[in-house]
């Protein structure tokens, strides 16, 4: 599960260049790309549907029609909405706490060179702990209610935000600071009016990157011990060998995450409209 790469080296928002593919397929070619995508989707779902019971065992892999029927049934189940609500609240709180703590500490340490150098290896060590290994202990420390899930999500989000914020403030172009200083800016003004705005693109990119990790943290927590939440529901279905139900929840999570990412992308594009457009395009392309 531990898919987190080393957030100590987040992908620099400055260095991303537009991938060749998106340059070639701009404009009129876009329609044929979309056609290709639809065909691929139809091929995938069609093979799955027609092959179910013939090539694949339906017990293990279910089939698209059954999954859609199950998903439809879930949408009329109040219990499903309650689980969705619990997971959403946990995810939101974990994301918010992790992001705020990461940004605040990142900014603070960027200003406080000595402390930053002292604690650097410790933060690296903390971030090297596979979070799933600590999950059972978190249940012991925080109990089985929401707080353990919120904490788990927050730790994942925190490190991404912390390292991104720190790199952002540190990578400010020195010439910008000199210009402001010559124009009469105080050290405080240089920080608030030059360094922070310049770091904002890193911070916003961090907010986008860390969003999926908030969901991952919550789901792991719910797998451990819980009585509510989408993770609980998924775990319930899979342990009772209801692959149709489990896949329905997984697909629902996928759609949920895609929707959230789309919203965040829109917000990012709006906030970072000062960045050369090809950089924004490159960011979107990755999703």
């Amino acid at each position, binding site marked *: 599960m531990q898919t987190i790469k080393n957030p100590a080296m987040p992908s620099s928002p400055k260095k991303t260049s537009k991938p060749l593919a998106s340059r070639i397929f701009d404009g009129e070619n876009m329609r044929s790309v979309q056609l290709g995508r639809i065909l691929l989707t139809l091929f995938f779902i069609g093979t799955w549907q027609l092959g179910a019971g013939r090539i694949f065992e339906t017990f293990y892999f279910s089939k698209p029609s059954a999954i859609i029927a199950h998903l439809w049934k879930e949408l009329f189940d109040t219990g499903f909405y309650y689980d969705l609500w619990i997971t959403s609240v946990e995810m939101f709180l974990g994301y918010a706490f992790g992001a705020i703590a990461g940004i605040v500490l990142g900014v603070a340490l960027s200003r406080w060179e000595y402390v930053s150098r002292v604690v650097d290896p410790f933060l690296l060590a903390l971030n090297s702990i596979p979070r799933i290994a600590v999950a059972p202990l978190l249940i012991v420390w925080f109990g089985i209610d929401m707080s353990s899930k919120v904490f788990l999500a927050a730790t994942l989000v925190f490190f991404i935000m912390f390292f991104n914020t720190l790199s952002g403030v540190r990578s400010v172009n020195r*010439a910008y600071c000199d210009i402001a200083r010559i124009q009469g800016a105080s050290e405080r003004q240089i920080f608030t009016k030059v360094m922070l*705005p310049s770091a904002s693109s890193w911070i916003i990119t961090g907010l986008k990157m860390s969003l999926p990790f908030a969901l991952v943290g919550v789901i792991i927590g719910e797998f451990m011990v819980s009585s509510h939440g989408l993770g609980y529901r998924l775990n319930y279905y899979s342990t009772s060998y209801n692959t149709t139900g489990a896949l329905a929840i997984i697909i629902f999570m996928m759609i949920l995450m895609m929707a959230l990412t789309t919203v965040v992308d829109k917000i990012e594009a709006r906030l970072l409209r*000062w960045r050369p457009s090809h950089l924004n395009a490159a960011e979107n392309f990755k999703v």
Partner: protein
Amino acid sequence: MNNDLNAQTRSNALLSMEGVAKQFSGRDRQVVALQNTDLEIFAGEFITVVGPSGCGKSTLLNLIAGLMAPSEGTVRFKGKPVVGVDRSIGYITQQDNLFPWLTLRDNVAFPLELVGVPEKERHDRAHSWLERVGLAGFEKAYPHELSGGMRQRGNIVRTLIYEPSIILMDEPFGPLDAQTRISLQETLLSIWESTRSTVVFITHDLTEAIALGDRVILMSARPGRIVRDDKVEISRPRDVFFIQSDPQFRRLYDEIWQDLAAQVHEHANH
């Protein structure tokens, strides 16, 4: 007696350098960027500094701006030694360095924001300056949406807007193409005619130096020092598009060129 005389000249010059030298220590040797430099700049003068590349022209500006401290000698601004940067000394760099996260208008108004000028006034002043350099209508554009020439115009007015008493310019038109250069020279001169602020303008282009300056200072190849200091008597307002056919221009150009060519030669042989 002698001291009194020094004090007298100091008070007259807006900016003076007395026996200024600057060395940089590399890993195994010392590089002398500037040696034994005396210079006086008076209020309202347009000084151009020309010399072979790497002759310490930028070091000269950094010393005046207070970004560097001299190894020997003193730089005085209004009679007081320069220590650290001072808002009354403006600095226009070769790279435009407009803040990418601010619109053109906010970039230009930034020095006013620093001292708490109200937003309305800031915008009005930025607008009128942008209009003077032909950038009206581009207030809300971000730097990446503008051409190099437009960004450099923006870079110039964001220094002019807060009216520093001396403006340092380090090859501001260096990276631009020939047509854009001339058009920017013209804009700069027309603004200068109306403000008559003190300018120290560095360039490697002798034509530009004579066309713009009241005084052309020629610097030697490294270690840099002042070789010549010529007054340009061509009357103002000048037409930068046709100044090259002016007989005074030609005479001065040929004269300075002799020495500049020798310096470039020497620099190449080092």
